[in-house]
């Protein structure tokens, strides 16, 4: 492990290293860390490519689909039904060849795989095979960027609300261990076994179908209001149910997790010592419980932030929310490897950067941690 942690009591006996050796140590650590993360990204993305094209079997599937699509389109054209079979077959074969060429199926799979990989690593996301953006673009960059705001809005609002409320309520509950509210949270934590889309269906039934106070689905009313304020209000109104379903599905379990986590730290010896010293509860909470848990909380938060990128596939589908989750789902269904790889590489880079930066953040927020030590 590159990161070494020590208990607060050990810190006092450590000698501060010389600044030059510290710089070398950090630099060595940075280089090694970047190399390892880089390799991880390369391997991860290549594996994604291999999985996405099922080791090359997707070519067979795509060839079949191309042949079927073109044959059916010609079969549906009455003008071509009177052609003699040989001419018609030749025409079909020509079209199939052209379409296979367009899809790149005339290039060996290994070559295409490495092309996908090198393009992905250099963030040349390229063009989708079948998928188009809502506006009609085939550029993967546009396809992803078009859906990003909607996903960030839905996931951002729900996950950040979930995170903040969970931490605050959990901290509060950890001080009231065994209280009725604590027991309610413990009792309701299994409700998180139910996926968000399931809550979504119930919420739609109650608030849209029965009470008719909130919209069934979509991101904005139809037609979308032209006034920016009305547009915003319409979006917020449409946001309530999907966000609520995402929050509800994780709410109690999240509080329960943090509450248990805080409880463990609350029972540390140094906390008991602080209590014995008569320090105020707020000070104990802030300095003795919350601070040592900060690396974990920050890690969770950072992963939550990059997790926003992935969207919530089924919830987005239930609410017809135009997010990245649905796009990725469609791309997988269409074997659209450039879109799958594009989405993966961005997530991989975000994850690698986050992991890399977190090492430094740990060192900043926790004096027990030393980079490259």
């Amino acid at each position, binding site marked *: 492990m590159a990161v070494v942690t020590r208990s607060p009591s050990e810190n006092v006996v450590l000698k501060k290293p010389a600044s030059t050796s510290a710089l070398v140590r950090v630099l060595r650590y940075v280089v090694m860390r970047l190399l390892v993360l880089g390799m991880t990204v390369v391997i991860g993305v290549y594996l994604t490519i291999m999985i996405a094209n099922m080791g090359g079997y997707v070519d*067979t*599937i795509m*060839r*079949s*689909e191309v*042949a*079927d699509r073109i*044959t059916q389109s010609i*079969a*549906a*054209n*009455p*003008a*071509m*039904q*009177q*052609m003699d*079979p040989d001419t018609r077959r030749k*025409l*079909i074969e*020509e*079209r199939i060849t*052209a*379409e296979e060429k*367009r899809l790149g199926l005339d290039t060996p799979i290994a070559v295409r795989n490495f092309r996908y990989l090198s393009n992905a690593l250099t963030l040349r996301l390229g*063009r989708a095979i079948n998928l*188009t953006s*809502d*506006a*009609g*673009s085939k550029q993967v960059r*546009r396809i992803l960027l*078009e859906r990003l705001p*909607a996903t960030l809005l839905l996931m951002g609002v729900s996950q950040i609300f979930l995170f903040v409320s969970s931490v605050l309520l959990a901290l509060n509950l950890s001080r009231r261990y065994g209280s*009725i509210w604590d*027991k*309610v949270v*413990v*009792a*309701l934590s*299994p*409700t998180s076994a*139910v996926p968000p889309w399931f809550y979504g269906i*119930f919420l*739609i*039934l109650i608030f*849209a*179908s029965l009470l*008719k106070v909130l919209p*069934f*689905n*979509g*991101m*904005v009313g*139809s*037609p*979308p209001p032209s006034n920016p304020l009305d547009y915003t209000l319409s979006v917020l109104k449409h946001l309530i149910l999907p966000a609520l379903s995402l929050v509800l599905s994780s709410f109690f379990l999240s509080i329960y997790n943090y509450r248990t986590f805080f409880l463990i730290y609350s029972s540390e010896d140094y906390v008991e010592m602080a209590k014995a010293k008569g320090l105020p509860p707020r000070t104990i909470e802030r300095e003795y419980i919350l601070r040592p848990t900060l690396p974990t909380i920050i890690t969770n938060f950072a992963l939550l932030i990059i997790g926003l990128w992935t969207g919530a596939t089924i919830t987005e589908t239930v609410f*017809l929310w*135009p997010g990245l989750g649905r796009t990725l789902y469609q791309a997988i269904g269409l*074997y659209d490897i450039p879109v799958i790889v594009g989405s993966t590489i961005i997530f991989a880079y975000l994850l690698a950067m986050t992991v890399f930066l977190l090492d430094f953040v740990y060192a900043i927020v926790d004096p027990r941690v030393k980079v490259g030590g």
Partner: protein
Amino acid sequence: MKSRQSVTLLSLLVAVSLVLAACAPQEAPITEEPSMPEPQAPEATEAPVPTEEPAMPKTTRHGGWLDEIDVSVVSGDSAISQLQAGAIDLYSYGLASDVYPAIKEAGLKYSQSYGGSYSLMFNPAVFEDTTRLNPFSNRKIREAMNWLIDRNYINQEIYAGGSLAKFFAVTTQLVEYTDLIDTARALESKYAYNFDKAKEVITAEMTAMGAVLGSDGKWQYQNAPVNVIFLIRPDGDGTRKPMGDYVANQLEAIGFTVERQYKKSSEAAPIWRGSQAKLGLWNLYTAGWLPSGLTRDERGQIQQMYLNTSIQGVDPFISNVSDPEFQKLGDDLAQGNFSTPEERKAMMERALELSLQDSLQVFTIEQVQYSPYNENVQLTYDLASGVEGAYVGPYNLRFVGEEGGAMKVGTADLFTEPWNTVSGSNWVWDSNIMRATEMGTGNIVGTAGLMGDPYTGLAWPHRIESASLTYKKGLPIRQSLDWYSLEAADEIPVPSDAWVDWNATEQRWITAAEKFPEGTTANVKSVVVYPADLFETVTWHDGSPVSVGDFVMAMLMPFDMAKPESAIYDESLVPSLEATLATFKGYRIVSTDPLTIEAYNDSYNADAELNILPLWPLSPFGLSGENSWTIFAVTNLAEANKEIAYTSNKADTLQVEQTSWVGGPSLEVLAKYLDQAAGESYIPYKPTLGQYITKEEADLRYGNFTKWYEEHGHFWVGTGPYYVDKVYTTEKSLVLKNNADFVDLADRWSAFSEPKLARILLDGSGQVKAGEESVFDVSVSFKDDPYPSSDIQRVKYILYDTTGAVVVVGDAEFVGEGQYRVTLGADVTSKLPTGSARLEVAVVPVPVAVPAFTSLDFVVVK
């Protein structure tokens, strides 16, 4: 302690309630018996006769009935709830028939249309591995599969009784089927579910093939079980899985060992389509076929669905060795090798019979789809392709008894692909919107200013003054409507100045004299005369009048784009042009005032109406949507500079965006070239279009188009009753507004508004004595009034005996308006064995493509 127990109890309650909620039955269980055992296809509506007064009260309103149509994407799962909650007024996309009971229960109105069909596709090959027996290489066993499966059971249990049992490759209860109704019903009766008969035939054939029925009741071949690999599709609408399981159960019940392989489309296709049939990777497959729309001519289906000359061109079709008579019949029908309608009919009748004997596919279900809408909505839908497939649909969509208002319409998706009329989206939901913005519809051989009849599939003149059709003597062409003149000629010479091809280098038409110095002829010639005031009364949505330039531009585009010398050459369009040129014989503009255009073709349709070729600036590539010469001019400039491309193929090759006239990065490019064209008063293809477009017209066009873009933010402009006001691609919604400048009044097609539902009552004795005459009365009505005899083509009756075999088929006797009589003579009743018998009556109306049926069961006594 108490509080802990309470908490535990509470948590248990929550968990139990969630489980119960998850297990609760759905609102509309699919197995519920619908109120009608098998819904009849929508019934008669009178086709409009141009000279007739519209049925609806006169109006002064132009364009569509609505002020605004707000279209958005709505999940099909919530469509009924959203309709009930008033969130939408209409769900225009067709829902599968398993929602039919839920629609009825919700008290919603609905349209019915065909949604494709399902079949069992068999591998007909003898396997390379001689230790494995393929039972379905035996034609008799395939035929017996018809008796082994109960199509009515499938329909009731899986499709909630909302679809139709299907036996033939032609669409059940549509035009072709109706023409062959005697044969079709008799064959349906012959091949009705009969497990014992299936077992008897299969047992005999399996034994003859060397298989042995083991003591465990399983077929063995060379001491191994006869293993049948069944590819079952669990994807799509999910109905193929239970259907496949049912068939597998039936196969197991007669001794086959069935290996059920559940594979979605992409996994199954490489096996059933992609592998060699003789390798034996599969034995049967749950196939599905798209609906073909309100197609009147389905003779090609025999070849396509059974024969090794099928357009499908893959195994298992290639491996099928059909009966030589069937092979010849199917090929002759597809190639049009017959000379009279009577000969064609006889060939079709025999082909239907032989198709069931061949049974490379055993068809199971003709799917019926439902589009639900609220009580206050009035609409017209196409019998075959539903609300979204009806060309006249946008014209008649309205709130009952109201003019104006904003209607909220939900559909399954929008903007699935970029919108342009060369190679843009042709998804049904996108096309439905596009059609609201255009005038008329495409016909079978090209584009036209016609209106498709939603009930017969025939075409009515929309923006043409008169037309005539000449066809070569001997071709089996029939006339159904009388809005044009028809004549036969020994020979139809193509005039030497007719335009037959395009010279992309010189940007001019190639004449018949140049291409065919020896002269050439055509099978059909249509002459269309447009209204004298066409160019004054019809305007584009941006205010520019339609001009001859629009017509000629639409004519030349498919030629120019497929010529390597063109600046906008697109190799992916070459095969289309080659296919067109194989039968296309020429255009000729006889006059521009009034506009008169002749068209010559070798390709023809059996319905004379569908051979009339009135050109119109509609998509020259058979898509929906209109195109002014202006939008083509601007887009062509952008394409020539390789900044965007009409087709996805070329866009991928050039690594540029595919052209969209409604959204995305194309708009900025198009706006740039619109500025350029306006600045230069650009006239495209000047050597040709310069004869029709003046600088003044070009300036006016570009000025109006620029204003349009500034106001609406897109380039989608048509001449139809609605215009696209705003487009929201990411939000997946769109606003259509009424075109108050539309040339026609809103009631132009109101005669199509209300379906003229026919009702048949069959009355007679419940007991018939064999050897004595028996009489049955038939009354056919519409809204309690007699159905006019002039609107009834035939009233047929079919008598079945107690075994279901057909005893006699005949025509009912006309008694008076709406009254018919069926007389079963003594010679007929004497043929009936004692027991139950059934008399079925089929009414074939003129104004609609589907027949109506009713039947009466009676007892035969000695």
